[in-house]
């Protein structure tokens, strides 16, 4: 596993743990299909949330949330549709969140949760 994948994996673990602490129900992690991958699929209240986790160690290449482009968002929408089609449960509403994780060299991870971005 490349170092950057390990960083990403670590970030996703942190986020998944936090979401569960906040009472979210995590339905799937790293769900894949031919379109790509959903990092976390969870339920917040009655709402289905597709969570995209972006993890960075430095801000040299911009902040993590800046890495989510319009193109990426539209792919996430298609992925959510594909995930919904793959199972039977129905939800009152669907949204996409972005969670930006910055891992400083020392100290705790900085997590910023952006709701309903797309």
């Amino acid at each position, binding site marked *: 596993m490349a170092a950057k994948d390990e960083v990403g994996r670590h970030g996703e673990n942190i986020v998944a743990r936090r979401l569960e602490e906040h009472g979210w129900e995590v339905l799937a992690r790293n769900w894949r299909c031919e379109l790509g991958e959903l990092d976390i699929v969870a339920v917040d209240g009655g709402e289905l949330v597709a969570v995209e986790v972006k993890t960075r160690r430095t801000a040299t290449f911009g*902040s993590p*949330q800046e890495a989510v482009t319009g193109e990426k*968002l539209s792919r996430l929408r298609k992925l959510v549709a594909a995930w919904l089609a793959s199972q039977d449960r129905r939800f009152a509403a669907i949204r996409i969140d972005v969670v930006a994780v910055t891992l400083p060299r020392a100290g705790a991870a900085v997590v910023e949760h952006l709701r309903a971005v797309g």
Partner: protein
Amino acid sequence: MIGRSRAIALAGLAGHVVDVEAHLAAALPAFTIVGLPDASLQESRDRVRAATSSSGLDWPTRRITVNLSPASLPKSGSATDLAIAVAVLAAATQVDSRAAARSVYIGELGLDGAVRPVRGVLPAVAAAVAAGLPNVVVSSANAAEAALVQGARVTGVASLGELARLLGNEHALLAPPPKANVVHTTATLPAQLDLADVRGQEEARRALEIAAAGGHHLFMVGAPGAGKTMLAARLPSLLPPLDNADAVAATSIHSLCGSFDPSEGLLSRPPFEAPHHSASAAAIVGGGSAIARPGAISRAHGGVLFLDEAPEFPARILDTLRQPLESGEIVLHRAYGAARYPSRFQLVLAANPCPCGNRGVRGKACSCSPIVARRYLARLSGPLLDRIDIRIDVAPVRRGATEGEATVVVAERVARARAAARERFSGLGWSANAQASSRWLRASTPSTSLAAGQAALDRGSVSARGLDRALRVAWSISDLAGIPAPTATHVLEALSLRNGSLT
């Protein structure tokens, strides 16, 4: 979180206060500017962002929306960069938001964080002060110009970092001071030219002096090399200095054009503009897309507009001068609205007597056919010539011509004549004889003097309107002579100043 600052949007010389609001939302990072910005203002996003980073300030990773209010007013240009940057920094609590909201910011940002000077600072600051916002922050290169506005409290900053420190951020970096100054495109004031340089030409010098005394438009016809341009270029130095209102208006125009040096204060000498006959209508009267920019007639406000080789100008362009000659201002309508520029100038036309220039010159043969020669001066339309009070022939200088009076001597007489006219017209709203109404002229000119003019009218050698013009000139002659009203001799001299090649 909302940050506020203020900027000025200029539409011509009229400035409007623009409230700049920046809103930060917790969403994917983006930066949008709303409120009718044009393409040049959209570019300010990239400059503001780069300048902020270069100044050691954090650019907020938020969805930033900047609104320029009133949203219905079209906005343009780079002068709002500074206000946008301050509003964003205030919204991000990187500077004190209450201090930020107290001032008006006018300046362009460089990528290195430098605050660059912009054009039109004088009218913009004047608009801010008039709107009750005396605290103005400008580029340090514009500070001298901004300080010319009475009542303005001007802060000059060299960089965004310096401004952020003034607004309470201690970590901001100072950028190197801007190297580029406002581009001064033209030298508007000719070096002081002296009338003593003109040899001979007693008649033309006299006409020039009378034109200066009464603010009369002047038309000179003469062979090439006779000295028409020399004479015209010396007219501004004969005119009295601009009064305060005209100085502010003229300086504002030159500030917009980037053709004025603030280190010398407000323009006080009457400007001199001599556009070439190949100039376009937009260059002469003002023009351009979006909001029209001032042209030569507005740069000549309070001074002299000299059209050399006047018949070579397209008739269409000469006719555009009629409205400003009548009203003293020009209104230019463009896509983004109307711009109103003052343009009260003294018109001086010069022309050769015919295309080859030799017609009627002693010792030279004219090579033009009679019809070509006649058509040449007929290119100047009747309505335009109708507004010109003095028409003279300028003959080539002969050998042994003597040096005449110096500018200081003549300007002194002109100043006294102007003062006499101003006093006479104090209740009537005119400042020079050229503006006097026909009714006033007929009522106030002594009847014996009027009779001399009416005899010419009866002979048919002058039209009724031509007589009015001659009477205006006669008053200028009597003002120069220092007597209270024109005599019959003065009226006859004035009539003789209408008998150039064209009547």
